[in-house]
């Protein structure tokens, strides 16, 4: 008579002696896949006629790019032995690979349809991105080329921004949970420390397997919940993940995401220069108008006032006019020294340069008044037209 322990030990030793069971490749369908908190994975492999319990230890499981899904066809390698406490024959799997992507794509389509029905991908949910983001959260792997691509692009286009990296694994079993945690971390930071204006979620190109974390329902929901707008840049042009669908803006690549997220510094330099030019033009126009006013005033004073008063007013006019001219001239000079790059634009304010471009200044011959409107002249008036290299006297008819 044997004890149960002896019986099971005997069976186990028979199995363990069989070299064929020490190096097994088998294909089957996965069911009841569970990953315990310890990291060990338990599942069943089956075909229409039979099934076998399987174990995959944490170390081997950590090499998986993603967890298999129930119903997926896989190819497994490992050895077969007996788990004594339950007298059970088990397949100890050390390598697992998909034997076809059909089931995976099917599961993806199902999840997509389900989340879409809940409105997660609808256009109405998309939020506008801030015009000039001051703080940009980046969720990606700190070791990946994607991060360098993003930082290089941001540094070149919009170095005014400050980047907050929330690191996360972007492939493998822990990637979904880490991406969720990173998005949540940035949202906490935004609420508790300083506002974060947008989040770039990125990963370089890869197979559907490698991008699988971006199709994880937990990730999709965390992105939908984020109070901060999301720009996704996952994979290459042709890769479309559920994370892309739920993001407020989808870019084809990490570099593309950084490009869409911020304005271009060069364009801003041009915009500032345009404002500066408009300010100068408006101020010059205002100054010309004042001189004309003062000129008229002086004329009427000369007619109506004692000489001394006229002199007083004339002095005021001169002082004001000189002050204004000095201020303008000094400003223009400073601008020119400071902004070599913009020198050409400022140069276009110079009347000589304007004339060189084909414009003319028209003055009345009698009083030198500048003619800016047809209302200022009448037939018979004589005019002086200044061009780039000389003047033409003419008459209105």
């Amino acid at each position, binding site marked *: 008579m044997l004890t149960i322990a002896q019986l099971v030990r005997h069976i186990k030793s028979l199995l363990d002696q069989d070299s064929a069971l020490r190096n097994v490749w088998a294909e089957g369908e996965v069911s009841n896949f569970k990953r315990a908190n310890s990291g060990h994975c338990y599942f069943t492999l089956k075909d229409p006629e039979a099934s076998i319990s399987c174990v995959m230890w944490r170390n081997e499981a950590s090499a998986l790019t993603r967890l298999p899904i129930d119903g997926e066809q896989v190819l497994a390698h490992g050895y077969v032995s007996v788990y004594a406490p339950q007298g059970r024959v088990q397949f100890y799997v050390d390598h697992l690979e998909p034997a076809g992507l059909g089931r995976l794509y099917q599961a993806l389509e199902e999840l997509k349809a389900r989340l879409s029905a809940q409105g997660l991908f609808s256009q109405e949910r998309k939020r506008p991105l801030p015009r000039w983001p001051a703080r940009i*959260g980046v969720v990606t792997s700190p070791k990946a080329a994607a991060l360098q691509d993003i930082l290089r692009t941001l540094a070149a286009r919009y170095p005014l921004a400050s980047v907050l990296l929330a690191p996360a694994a972007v492939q493998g079993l822990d990637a979904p949970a880490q991406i969720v945690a990173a998005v949540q971390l940035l949202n906490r930071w935004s609420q508790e420390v300083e506002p974060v204006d947008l989040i770039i979620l990125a990963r370089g190109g890869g197979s559907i397997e490698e991008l699988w974390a971006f199709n994880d329902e937990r990730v999709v929901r965390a992105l939908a919940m984020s109070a901060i707008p999301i720009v996704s840049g996952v994979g290459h042009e042709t890769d479309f993940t559920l994370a892309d669908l739920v993001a407020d803006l989808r870019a084809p690549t990490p570099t593309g995401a950084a490009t869409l997220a911020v304005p271009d510094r060069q364009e801003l330099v041009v915009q500032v220069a345009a404002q500066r030019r408009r300010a100068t033009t408006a101020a010059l126009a205002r100054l010309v108008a004042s001189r004309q006013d003062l000129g008229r005033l002086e004329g009427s004073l000369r007619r109506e006032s004692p000489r001394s008063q006229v002199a007083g007013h004339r002095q005021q006019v001169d002082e004001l006019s000189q002050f204004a001219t000095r201020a303008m001239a000094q400003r223009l000079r400073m601008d020119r020294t400071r902004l070599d790059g913009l020198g050409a634009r400022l140069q276009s304010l110079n009347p000589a340069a304007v004339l060189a471009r084909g414009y003319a200044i028209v003055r009345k011959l009698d009083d030198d008044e500048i003619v800016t409107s047809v209302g200022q002249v009448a037939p018979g008036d004589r005019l002086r037209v200044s061009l780039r290299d000389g003047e033409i006297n003419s008459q209105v008819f």
Partner: protein
Amino acid sequence: MDELEDMTFEQAFEALELTVQRLEAGDLPLAEALAAFERGTRLAALCDRYLSEAELRVRELAADDSGDLASIPLDSWQMEAGDDR
């Protein structure tokens, strides 16, 4: 004038746009117009300084075990560039 020192690029640019609009309206007294021009020029210079001198700042965020938030500057990100390419 010291108010300018505290402005972000965005604030300075928006103030510049406003100043230019006031100037272009053309109805300011001369002294005010010149003051507006002066201010506009300072704002434009501030914007240019931001655009030419800014350097991207990168920090890495972390939450410790008790959930406290912290950030560490990543000054060396540029040195690491290219390793993975």
